[in-house]
């Protein structure tokens, strides 16, 4: 395995529950949460993990952290086995779960001291984080709002500058300003060579900070691609303005492999979704009288929905 790979997940399969045969009756049911999933995260990249609720994102993350026992496959972090070497891995890892809970009778200050005993905190970076997040460190956690608790959780996960960060829906509860600040910090950490594995429902977040994205659907990885390539290669929005209402053979254009959809917005405007080989499409329309054509990359949201429909 290359030294550049921080996380390697190979053929991961996780089944919840087990059937127990008691003579004729079968007790319990199996749920295939993650099915033969393979991907890797390279050093110094931000890898986005996309999928709707129940797709297998959190199960994958909790398997990496060795909270769950996997049925098949292997997981290595820094080339170390996630099960045998979990303590060694956790010395170099920061984590924030999707549903964050903090000790309610602690203050932020006390929590920082507590975490510092496990993973030494960079005081300089902590100072920077406190300037960015501006959350009270002297109030008890129970008296903080959900968003402020999330900020404390993020500070605790990031402050020791671990080499690898696993962030499950990290920006939940943050206001737009805090989210933007948080993204700046993640970009800065990436520049310093820190690897980030992030799951999110917020597609614009993934689009703006991630280098690569993996889309998981019903426990299976259906796509892994660099964000920029994904947007260029997989889906483009084409808007055609005709000079006057005229015949445009929509049925014919839909026969092209590259055209996913064609919708007439009004008499003179058409909107198409075109993927991959756009030259085939351009070749087809070259003989048509067109007033204006605009081609732009689809948003990640559109790509995501395309794969989920």
């Amino acid at each position, binding site marked *: 395995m290359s030294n550049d790979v921080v996380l390697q997940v190979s053929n991961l399969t996780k089944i*919840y529950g087990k059937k127990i045969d008691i003579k004729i009756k079968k007790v319990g049911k199996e749920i295939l949460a993650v099915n033969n999933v393979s991907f890797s995260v390279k050093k110094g990249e931000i890898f986005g993990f996309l999928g709707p609720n129940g797709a297998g994102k959190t199960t994958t993350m*909790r398997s990496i*952290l060795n*909270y*769950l*026992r996997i049925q098949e496959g292997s997981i290595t972090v820094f080339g170390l086995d996630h099960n045998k070497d979990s*303590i*060694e891995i*956790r*010395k170099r*890892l*920061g*984590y*924030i*779960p999707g*549903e*964050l*809970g*903090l*000790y*309610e*009778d*602690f203050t932020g200050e006390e929590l920082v001291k*507590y*975490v510092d*005993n*496990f*993973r030494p905190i960079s005081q300089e970076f902590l100072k920077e984080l406190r300037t960015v997040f501006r959350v009270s460190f002297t109030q008890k956690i129970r008296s903080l709002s959900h968003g402020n608790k999330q900020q404390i*959780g993020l500070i*605790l996960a990031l402050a020791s500058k671990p080499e690898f960060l696993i962030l499950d829906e990290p920006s939940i509860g943050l206001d737009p300003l805090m989210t933007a600040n948080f993204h700046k910090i993640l970009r800065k950490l990436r520049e310093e060579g820190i690897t980030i594995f992030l799951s999110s429902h917020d597609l614009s977040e993934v689009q703006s900070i991630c280098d690569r994205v993996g889309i998981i659907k019903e426990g299976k990885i259906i796509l892994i691609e660099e964000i920029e390539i994904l947007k260029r290669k997989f889906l483009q929005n084409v808007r055609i303005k005709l000079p006057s209402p005229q015949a445009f053979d929509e049925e014919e254009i839909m026969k092209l492999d590259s055209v996913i959809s064609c919708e007439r917005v009004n008499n003179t405007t058409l909107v198409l979704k075109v993927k991959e080989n756009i030259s085939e499409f351009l070749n087809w329309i070259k003989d048509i009288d067109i007033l204006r054509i605009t081609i732009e990359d689809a948003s990640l949201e559109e790509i995501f929905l395309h794969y989920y429909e």
Partner: protein
Amino acid sequence: MLNVYFKGLTKKWKSIITPALIIGLYVIMIAGIWPALKDQAEAFQFILDNPIYQSILGNLAGSMFTTWEGAFYLYIFVWLEMVIVFITIFTPTRLVTNEIDKKTLDVALSYPIPRWRYLLEKYSVFLTYNLLYPIFILIAGYFGTLALRPFDPAASMNYTLLFVASISVWLYLFALGSLSILVSTIFLDSRKSLAVAGSLIVGMYLLVRIGSAAESINFLQYISIFHYFSAGNIMENGGFLVGEFFIVFGFGLVCLIAALWIFQKRELTY
């Protein structure tokens, strides 16, 4: 080193020392009313000969209520058994399940500490604070007896025996607490754990009471941990019961090791 232990020690002291403190104050209160109670003690002793009381009190029924030491054992250790039942059902069971309910466990276990050690350090906080029970009982027993002397010159206490009896309190808290921890690591669910641990501990408490009610069902008490190394047994035998000590301690140790092993090995699905 011992981060989890010291975190618990500094944060949980109020809720944990309160029952021990109440027991200590209760001893003082008993000492305060004993001079007035003593004159009616013989009538009470007669009531205690009733078979129902005999089964409720177990070996403690043999204590002479007419003496300060006998009354002290009856008042303190009968109540303490019930306190032990209550505490060991509710406190150790929630060490893990409370973290699951409050969603703090995932973050707590993402730090570089083996799961078994995390649990052991948390449980050690419980065991440390429980040392206050024997300490408070001894201190309160000593000062209660001293305070009584002007009113009852015959008031005396065998402190060696009281020390051994109060150790039995800690030992029960350890053994039954370990059982509760074991149950909670198996279920990882607060309601199920409380129900199962509660049934087992209350069940054992009832077995020893029912078992002592009649000769024909006497065998029942042998399968209850409350039958061994109890304050009543210690008082009746007048010393340290080595065999019984190891039965209770061994039971607790096996439960604790099993709990630590299960928590280390099992997957955390909740």
